[in-house]
Each structure stands twice: as structure tokens, then as C-alpha cells.
């Protein structure tokens, strides 16, 4: 028997999201994902001072303001044609990593795992343990994560003044000049966090986890000792198996990454990178490479292609904006909100970004696939993308990022180099800043004319993941991932919640993408 239902709104995500589902015979037959708030953000940028993006764009998102700051600063670096010093690169990288780690941990334990305490799991032998760990504001892991993630944000405050919403990155480097003592304080804070992450989240030392390079390695790791099974990662593996999370949320199978973390000219992290990512094609300029992965089809394996930002376009056929005649690159698109609202085929305030005409998933899993991390490549090749591996990538990202940050901190403490290089006056130019935020690929495209912002366009990670259909009728990534999902209880389709949350949605970011 066919039945239509709506879920609205999905809570415990960043922002407002409505999912319209059609379910027939217990299987999702159609889906539309709607961002239901419009903030009209970039339009207020036009005519403003050339540096205003550094102050205003962090205010797009209370959870990833440092990421927007970095993208804005990089766009201005390009416009000013200034080379950033190694010290400034490291400080920018470290603060961005700290923000990403707090976001990953908070997402996992405040937003994703609490769904395991849903009434539909009451019959599960793991239900009580899930409640003990993840009950909102009360679960053991939740309480610890509240305390521990604050230490990461203290590091940002020491290096950048405050979190959220500072503006310490400027074209040419950073305005802040941390002393060796400041750096030492940061190292102590990070060591505290590392201890907790190893004890509670992994159940082992980071070095041990980094030995896990395949699915079978992961099974060996899991069986090795009780500490592994009883850590939050161990619990996640146990719960995911029972809830069959590896069987849902496949999607299109395309991935995009803008590449992560600008490498300082002289750094030992290069060796570390080459050890953890032996097949990575990254240059010595970036810690993790940019790239576009096209899904394998009909026995042909998937392929990583070189990333070119010119191939990005935004389509608005199904978004509440007046349409251009065709999808355009962010430097060229014109966007006007389509005020007549909710009738007709348009259904979202999120636009539909495409790469070379294709939809693509972005986020920690995409980063790992494009950097050819052995474990994630192995899982992808044997199971395809799914909810389990998507969240796994987020949960263990810290195992790579903590050691890298430690190394960069000690390199900064030993260096006498400047943090800022003068860039002169900004009169004209265009530039872009492409980075990897907690949720994936984030881009700012900026044009300056007569010392004023002429155009400011932003594509956030969730815009990629939450995009509606495009002109060809091709669904957005998480829409596609929901299609065909078996729903056990039509009144509580928790499976759909898992799928969407595995992308770590941030709608406050996604719903303001209007260019001027």
C-alpha cells in the first residue's frame, strides 16, 4: 500500500531541514530535501570594504567560522598576490584543524549517536549502553565530549583571540603573533585532548589505530582486546553491525575534495603524510590532495581525476531562485530569490552545485578516498559508500590530524619567522579560497573593484551534499542515498535520519548561497 509522509523538521542538525519522502511497500521511492530558511547573506557584501569578508563570512556559521575565515583570507591572498609565511600557514592550519576536530566529535556524540537511543532500538541488546553513552546532556561520552572539545577551542582562542567568530587571518598571514609560551600552552591543551581521545574514543594509542589499513586489519583490531570493543569507536562498530549501517546510504558514489592544509615550505609532516597515505598523489604544497572521484560502474573501477575549479557550476532549476538560462560558474552566476515560494517544482533554498555536470559527495570520507587512504579505499571497493564508513571517517580523522598538529606546533615554536607580510593596498582583482572545512569542500569566490567588493559567492559543503535536483533531474547526493532505503517503521523512519546525519548537515551554511 502506498503512503506519503513528511518529516519536518529534522532536529539536532545545524539549521532547518525538511525531508519529503514517498514510501511504497516499505521502500523509499522518492525524496525531496528542502532547506527551509533563506538568509540572503552574500548580497550584503556588495559595495563593502575589501577586507569585510574576513569579518562577515565567519558569521555564516557558528560551528565553522574559522573555516569561512580561512577561505576568505585565501581568496584575498590570491587577489593581493602575497605569499604567506610558513609560520602563518601553520597557525592557519592548526586553528582550522582544531575547529574541525571539535565539530567532528560534537557531531558524532551530540548529533549522530543520540539517534541510537531512539525508541525503535528499545529491543536491541545495545540500547541501554547507547543511552548510557549518548543521552543528550546526560550520557557519559556526551558529558566528557563537552569538556574535552572546549580545550581545542581554547587553542583557537590563544592563537586567534576567541571562538567562534574571530578574524585573525588576514591577507599575508595572521594578525596574531603567538609567542613560544602561547604555543607551549597549546601543546599542553592538545596533549590533554589526545589522552582523552585515545582512552575514550579509540581505546588505543593513535599509533596502533594508524596500523589499521584494511577491513581485515580493522577486524583484527576489534578482536584484539576489550578496550577496543568498549571504546566509543568499538561501540560504534558493534552498533553499526547490528543496525546494518553498512548497507544503507550509498548515493551516487562521486566524491569531491578541494584539498586540505597548505604545507609550509619546510616541514616534517611531509614524511608523516607519506607514511599514512602511501599512495596519495598530493604535491608538497598541500597535506591532502584535491580531486574528483567518479564512481565505478559496470565493473569499471572508480577513478580519481585532477580537480579544476573552473568545472564547478551551480544549477537552480529546483531551487527557489530565478534561473539563469544555464548553470554557471560561481564567478558568473546571478541569483535572485524567487519569492513566490512553495508551489511548483522548486523546493529548496539550497542550490545544486555540480562538478563537470555531476553531483558529488563531500566531507571526511571524500577527503580519505581522494587521498587514497588504504583503509577507506578498501572499504569503498568492497562495500561501496555507506552510512557506516561515512561516519567512521569522521570519527577517526583526529588520529591523523592530532599528530600533524603537534608537529606543526613544535615547528612554529622553534621558528623566528614573521607571521604577517605586508600586501599593500587592495584595489582590483579576483580570487578564490578553496579549503576543506569539517563537512568538506568550501569555496569563496571574490571580485574586488575600485577597492570595494563587487561580487562574493560562497559554496559550502552542505550545498553539495544537500543539493536538490538539477536541470537533468539528477538528485542531490543525500537524496540519491535515501532512494531505495527499506523503512521498518513508517511512523519513525530512523534509517533516513541516519543517512542524512552521516553527511553532517549544516543548513545554516547551505541556505544563504546567493551571489550578487
Amino acid at each position, binding site marked *: 500500500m502506498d503512503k506519503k509522509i513528511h*518529516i519536518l*523538521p529534522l*532536529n*539536532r542538525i*545545524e539549521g*532547518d531541514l525538511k525531508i519529503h519522502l514517498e514510501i511504497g511497500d516499505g521502500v523509499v521511492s522518492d525524496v525531496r530535501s528542502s532547506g*527551509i*530558511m*533563506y*538568509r*540572503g*547573506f552574500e*548580497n*550584503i557584501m556588495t559595495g*563593502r*570594504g575589501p*577586507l*569585510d569578508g*574576513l*569579518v562577515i563570512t565567519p*558569521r555564516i*556559521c*557558528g*560551528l565553522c567560522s574559522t573555516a569561512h575565515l580561512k577561505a576568505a583570507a585565501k581568496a584575498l591572498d590570491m587577489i593581493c598576490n602575497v605569499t604567506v609565511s610558513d609560520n602563518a600557514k601553520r597557525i592557519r592550519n592548526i586553528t582550522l584543524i582544531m575547529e574541525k576536530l571539535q565539530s567532528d566529535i*560534537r557531531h558524532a556524540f*551530540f548529533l549522530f549517536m543520540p539517534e541510537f537511543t531512539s525508541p525503535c532500538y528499545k529491543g536491541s541488546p545495545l540500547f541501554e549502553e547507547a543511552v548510557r553513552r549518548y543521552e*543528550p*546532556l546526560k550520557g557519559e561520552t556526551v558529558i566528557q565530549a*563537552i*569538556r574535552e572539545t*572546549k580545550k581545542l*577551542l*581554547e587553542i583557537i*582562542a*590563544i*592563537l*586567534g*583571540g*576567541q*571562538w*567562534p*567568530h*574571530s*578574524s*585573525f587571518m*588576514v591577507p*599575508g*598571514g*595572521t*594578525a*596574531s*603573533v*603567538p609567542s613560544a609560551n602561547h604555543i607551549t600552552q597549546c601543546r599542553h591543551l592538545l596533549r590533554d585532548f589526545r589522552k582523552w581521545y585515545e582512552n575514550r574514543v579509540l581505546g588505543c594509542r593513535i599509533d596502533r589505530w594508524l596500523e589499521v589499513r584494511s577491513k581485515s586489519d580493522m577486524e583484527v583490531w576489534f578482536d584484539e582486546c576489550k578496550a577496543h570493543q568498549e571504546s566509543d569507536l568499538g561501540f560504534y562498530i558493534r552498533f553499526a553491525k547490528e543496525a546494518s549501517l553498512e548497507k544503507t546510504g550509498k548515493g551516487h558514489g562521486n566524491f569531491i575534495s578541494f584539498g586540505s592544509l597548505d604545507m609550509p615550505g619546510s616541514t616534517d609532516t611531509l614524511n608523516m603524510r607519506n607514511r599514512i597515505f602511501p599512495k596519495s598523489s598530493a604535491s608538497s604544497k598541500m597535506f591532502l590532495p584535491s580531486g574528483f572521484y567518479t564512481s565505478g560502474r559496470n565493473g569499471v573501477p572508480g577513478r580519481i581525476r585532477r580537480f579544476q575549479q573552473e568545472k564547478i557550476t551551480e544549477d537552480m532549476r529546483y531551487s527557489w531562485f530565478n534561473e539563469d538560462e544555464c548553470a554557471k560558474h560561481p564567478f558568473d552566476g546571478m541569483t535572485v*530569490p524567487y519569492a513566490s*515560494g512553495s508551489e511548483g517544482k522548486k523546493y529548496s*533554498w539550497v542550490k545544486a552545485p555540480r562538478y563537470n555536470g555531476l553531483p558529488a559527495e563531500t566531507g571526511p570520507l571524500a577527503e580519505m578516498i581522494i587521498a587514497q587512504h588504504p583503509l577507506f579505499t578498501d572499504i569503498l571497493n568492497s562495500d561501496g559508500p555507506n552510512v557506516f564508513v561515512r561516519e567512521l571517517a569522521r570519527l577517526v580523522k583526529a588520529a591523523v590530524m592530532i599528530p600533524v598538529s603537534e608537529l606543526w606546533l613544535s615547528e612554529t615554536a622553534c621558528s623566528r619567522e*614573521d607571521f*604577517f607580510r*605586508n600586501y599593500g593596498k587592495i584595489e582590483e582583482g579576483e580570487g578564490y579560497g578553496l579549503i576543506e572545512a569539517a563537512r568538506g569542500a568550501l569555496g569563496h569566490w571574490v571580485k574586488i573593484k575600485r577597492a570595494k567588493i563587487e561580487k562574493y559567492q560562497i559554496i559550502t559543503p552542505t550545498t553539495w551534499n544537500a543539493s536538490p535536483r538539477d536541470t537533468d533531474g539528477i538528485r542531490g547526493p543525500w537524496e540519491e542515498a535515501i532512494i531505495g532505503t527499506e523503512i521498518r517503521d513508517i511512523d*519513525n523512519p530512523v534509517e533516513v535520519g541516519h543517512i542524512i546525519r552521516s553527511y553532517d548537515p549544516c543548513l545554516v551554511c547551505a541556505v544563504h548561497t546567493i551571489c550578487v
Partner: protein
Amino acid sequence: MSVNLYWLQCGGCNGDTWSLFNAESPDIAEFFDLLDIELLWHPAISDKSLEEQEKLNECLLSGDQRLDILCVEGSVIRGPGGTGIYDEAYGKPKKDLVAALAKRAKYIIAAGTCASFGGVGAYGETEATGLQFLKWEKGGFLGKDFKSESGYPVINLPGCPCHCDVITGTLSLLVSEMPLELGEYNTPLEWYGMMVHQGCTRDEYHEYRVEEKRFGEKGCMFFHLGCHGPLVKGPCNKILWNRRSSKTRVGVPCFGCTRPDFPQHYPFFETRNIEGIPIELPDGVGRAYYLAYKGMAAAAAPARLKKRKTGI
């Protein structure tokens, strides 16, 4: 008797929520228990099915469930053309829910500059406004004469974001029915009775007019880099951020994010001036006196400051 709280996220970045998670002694997990606050609803924390949410809203609006504290984060979006459909909740404009809950609440808190004064969105096409102010002007969404059941107007806690201590401090005072003295723009004097400049570690550079002209220098950022510290009220340098620092302490100018006109219409990172003297002078200072004073101060500056040898 326990006091209840309903948190609504409107047109904003949810930064006030994440700022609240910075709270320390008590942290956010302890805070509600310790003060015996029943959290009826918070969109980033609560776990309620759609049915339960709708039931709760129904009971609040009918009066079957009393509402002690309504906390709103983000601006009220009224566009386009007053319809409010740029921001939707439960299939209706969210602004209608704000209006209905406001009628029932004993106290209303505007957390952050967007909810207080409209913030970033008030310059855009979303027709966004603060709850009881639109920028400098009284009125906003609820009207200039609005008072909640307690007799208080909307209690404004501006800041982008609002500091966690200001939110938890205000809630603590309200819950224990201690008096909360409000200043201009209906902000509590406890946190908005002082300038951001107070407590800045660069204050000596300001006194003697030793100026910072480029990023990374030691000096005062008021004269060239657009610092709003002496112009704008707020506790950033008194209570510090994340227990550690503030923007001005690390060499980032204050952007005046607690002021009704934030984000200002003139460029950030530069000081508007006439012949080298800032157009906007420290709050309440006369121009003639200021010129004489700063001239003498610069002449009197000790060598350790002029050589920028002091720590910051």
C-alpha cells in the same frame, strides 16, 4: 519549583548556542540541573519527535503549559513582503511562532546581536529585525511598548556571538529572581556597563597614543586599524573568551559586534578619520579636549612604549 526554558533558533548562525557550549563551572551539562531549569526545547540538543514538538507548542500556546523563559537566537525573518516564508517552521512562517510564544513567556531573552538588533540579516533582503529593536531604533518585531509577563522588555544580550557567561549569568539571575538592571538598549549593566577597551592589554599603548599601523605590530589599533574597543560596550576583556584571550589581546581589532549597527556599513580594519584624528572618539569624549590630550600623551609616551618593548 523548577523553571522552564524554550530556545528558538531563527535567522542566524547558531553561534550563540555553540558559544553557550563554552560555559565553564558549571558547564552546559551541569548548568540546567544545577539551576533546576527544565529545558522544554532546544533544536540542537532536545530529542523530541515531531508529534511531541507540536504537542508542546500547542500546550504552550493554549496556556496549558506555562512558559517561564523564551530565549531567541537569530533575527526574526519577515520577508519577502512581510510574509515570513523565507524562514519556515512546522509549515508556517517561524515569525508567527515567535509572536505567539512571546505572548506567553514570563521573560524573553534575545541571545546575540541578530535577535537583539537584527544583525547581519537586517541589511539584506530577508527583512530581518531584532525582537524589540531594528538597529538603533526601538520597535523591532514586537513593538517598542512590548513587555513580557514579568514586566521586563525583551532582555537584549548582544554580541556576535554572545559570551556564554552573559547567557548563563542572565539565566541564573532570572531563575533566582534577583534584580537585573538594564541600561540603554535594554542590555544588563553587569556586562554592558563597560567598554570593550577596559581590560585590554594594549590599553597603555592607547593612553600614550602609540599606534599600530600594520598587523602584527605592538600598539593600539584604535587609530588606524578600526578598533572599536573604546567606542562600544561589552565584557570581552573582562571575562575573556574560552577562558584565554580576546581579539584585541591577539592583535585583532574589536569590530563593535555588540553595537546595534553591527556589522557597520563602512569598511572594517580601518579607522575613519579627519586629519589623522578618528571621526568617532571614545564614548562621551569632547573633540577639543581629545586633541589636546592625545597630543600631550604622545609627547609624554615613555621610551619602552615607543620602542614597543613591552609585552602584550
